[in-house]
């Protein structure tokens, strides 16, 4: 049984939030951190509480860096039992992840590469007014405690509000790994249920075994790791690219679809190869009901290097259940109106990837699926949407009689920050608040 009453709701429930705020915190000494956490604890909803109670208006999640666990008083011996990638942190792993050049940590903002980054508090709110109310209350409280806010980021859904989408206009939140025991109803094409141990520590994973927990167990059982990425989207550049590569509106939409693997409506190219069919996207029974191996082995519908084919190669990759991740997040910055030129204002997505092993899941996805130019024998391509692009990579669109190759693909996104956090279970949070001694 998955202990939903002890797991933070974050990776289990998708809340109906239209606004959010992330705050990146530093604790000047353990007592300050513990005082802050003790008061915040009651605001953190478990997966059980969030899934079952009266409708909430805000949802709070708390995670810690490895330095943060130390800052709260966890001893060196148990700290050394955490996986190496978490101990090192995301910035130290940037070269392997492929976040180099303009994406490299030397350009990151918000104090995310600092060893003083100890914690993140994620606030999801029903609307902007509720976010503002909570932000004010929290600002008052951190001042009272003496906690330092290194930086913060406000997020909000962008219009039109009838469906979730990001700044390029692609529909978002279309798929979610079906986790065994989480109460999630798998939709057709979502694949078999995935063992809870792929996302939460202390459970059997897809190997049918339970990996050893980092110490102490009271802190780590029912925890998860999350990788945070702040990804700036260059909307003007993206729209210019579509205009340069498609003469008509229809051609431009097709190029946009080929890059993503779905039309901007969310309809997958495998099911709607020539023309958009928005009805598929809003039908949960159909929007994920496809594969590549049988339905599109050569990529004539969805190119081999398209974003969604890289991030989930479905039946064309081995061991795929061991690479699945749960994604959360939202958009920040104002929407750029259609036909408006690039205004230089930063906008993008700030997202989290949740998993039980950063190295096996998130880092593999970044290292191989996103940034390996040799992926699928493509030789000189990276993920067209958020791979590290510097104008030297291509994008191939398989087409009869001959393929179309777009060369010198520009960067549509830039990584502006990232970090690894551990999300303890509710008992784990209490353990930290009570002094972190076993």
């Amino acid at each position, binding site marked *: 049984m998955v202990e939903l009453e002890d797991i933070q709701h974050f990776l289990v429930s998708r809340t109906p939030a239209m606004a959010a705020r992330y705050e990146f915190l530093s604790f000047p000494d353990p007592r300050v951190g513990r005082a802050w956490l003790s008061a915040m604890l009651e605001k953190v909803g478990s997966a059980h509480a969030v899934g079952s109670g009266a409708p909430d208006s805000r949802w709070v999640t708390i995670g810690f860096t490895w330095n943060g666990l130390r800052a709260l008083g966890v001893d060196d011996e148990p700290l050394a039992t955490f*996986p*190496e*990638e978490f101990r090192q942190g995301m910035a130290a792993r940037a*070269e*392997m992840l492929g976040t180099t050049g303009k994406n490299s940590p030397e350009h990151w903002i918000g104090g995310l590469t600092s060893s003083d980054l100890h914690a993140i508090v994620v606030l999801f709110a029903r609307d902007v007014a509720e976010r503002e109310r909570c932000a004010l209350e929290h600002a008052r409280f951190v001042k009272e405690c003496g906690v330092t806010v290194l930086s913060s980021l406000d997020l909000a859904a962008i219009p039109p509000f009838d469906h979730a989408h990001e700044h390029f206009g692609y529909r978002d939140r279309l798929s979610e790994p079906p986790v065994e025991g989480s109460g999630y109803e798998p939709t057709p094409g979502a694949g078999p249920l995935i063992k809870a141990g792929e996302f939460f520590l202390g459970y059997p*994973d897809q*190997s049918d*075994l*339970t*990996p*050893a927990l980092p110490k102490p167990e009271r802190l780590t059982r029912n925890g998860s790791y999350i990788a945070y990425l702040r990804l700036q989207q260059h909307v003007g550049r993206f729209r210019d690219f579509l205009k340069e590569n498609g003469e008509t509106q229809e051609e431009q939409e097709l190029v946009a679809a080929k890059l993503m693997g779905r039309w901007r409506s969310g309809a997958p190219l495998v099911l709607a190869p020539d023309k958009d069919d928005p009805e598929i996207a809003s039908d949960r029974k159909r929007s994920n009901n496809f594969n590549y191996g049988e339905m599109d082995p050569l990529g004539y519908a969805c190119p081999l290097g398209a974003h969604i084919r890289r991030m989930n190669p479905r039946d064309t990759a*081995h*061991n795929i259940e*061991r690479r699945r991740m749960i994604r959360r997040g939202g958009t920040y910055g104002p929407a750029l109106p259609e036909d408006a030129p690039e205004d230089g204002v930063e906008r993008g997505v700030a997202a989290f990837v949740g998993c039980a092993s950063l*190295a*096996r899941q998130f*880092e*593999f996805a970044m*290292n*191989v699926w996103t940034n*390996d*130019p*040799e992926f699928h*024998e493509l*030789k*000189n391509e990276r993920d067209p949407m958020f791979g590290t692009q510097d104008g*030297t990579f291509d994008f191939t669109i398989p087409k009869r009689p001959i393929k179309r190759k777009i060369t010198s693909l520009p960067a549509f996104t830039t990584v502006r920050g990232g970090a690894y956090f551990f999300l303890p279970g509710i008992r784990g949070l209490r353990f930290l608040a009570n002094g972190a001694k076993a």
Partner: protein
Amino acid sequence: MTVKDFTKPAAMAIPKEGYFELKNGRYGVLYPRTPANYGFTIIAKVKAGREPAVREYGKKIENTIADLPEALEVLKLHYLRWVLFNIGGDTYFMYQGIFDTDFDKYTEDAVALFGKYGINTVFENLEGFPEDWKTNAPAFVKFVREHQCPSFLEYGEYPYVTADEIKKALKLKAAFSAMLDQMQ
């Protein structure tokens, strides 16, 4: 992108460390691609009395591949060579593989596959193999790295060509022959 010319045989001498530049993958240092592609040579001492068990695994792999020819596809192998030899009274196992993917990239896939087809089990006959390998990919990789003897020279008569490219070329040749036959 450097264009690698498959028509021009190439040789590469490799420094003692096994790499030219220290670059880390997810589980440690990365070894370079050479004209003979990626590969490893693992040499480890066989536990006393386990030589027959190791030999039996050769037969087991033969049978597995006969039944499931695609079983090792994920490893993108060209060749495997397993050798047993003695030094003094001890028996050593040499596992040499030549393949097209950077092993580090697909470590967990390889570990899962090894588990599925019993290759890991042959490793259990080797001294120092971690008992918790099933849930501990980093420990598995550590064993491989500690027993890896990097090449100091690698040569390719048709350098940098992948097994998939060779298979595609042979299929194309066969298809072309069939087409010519049809035109007689």
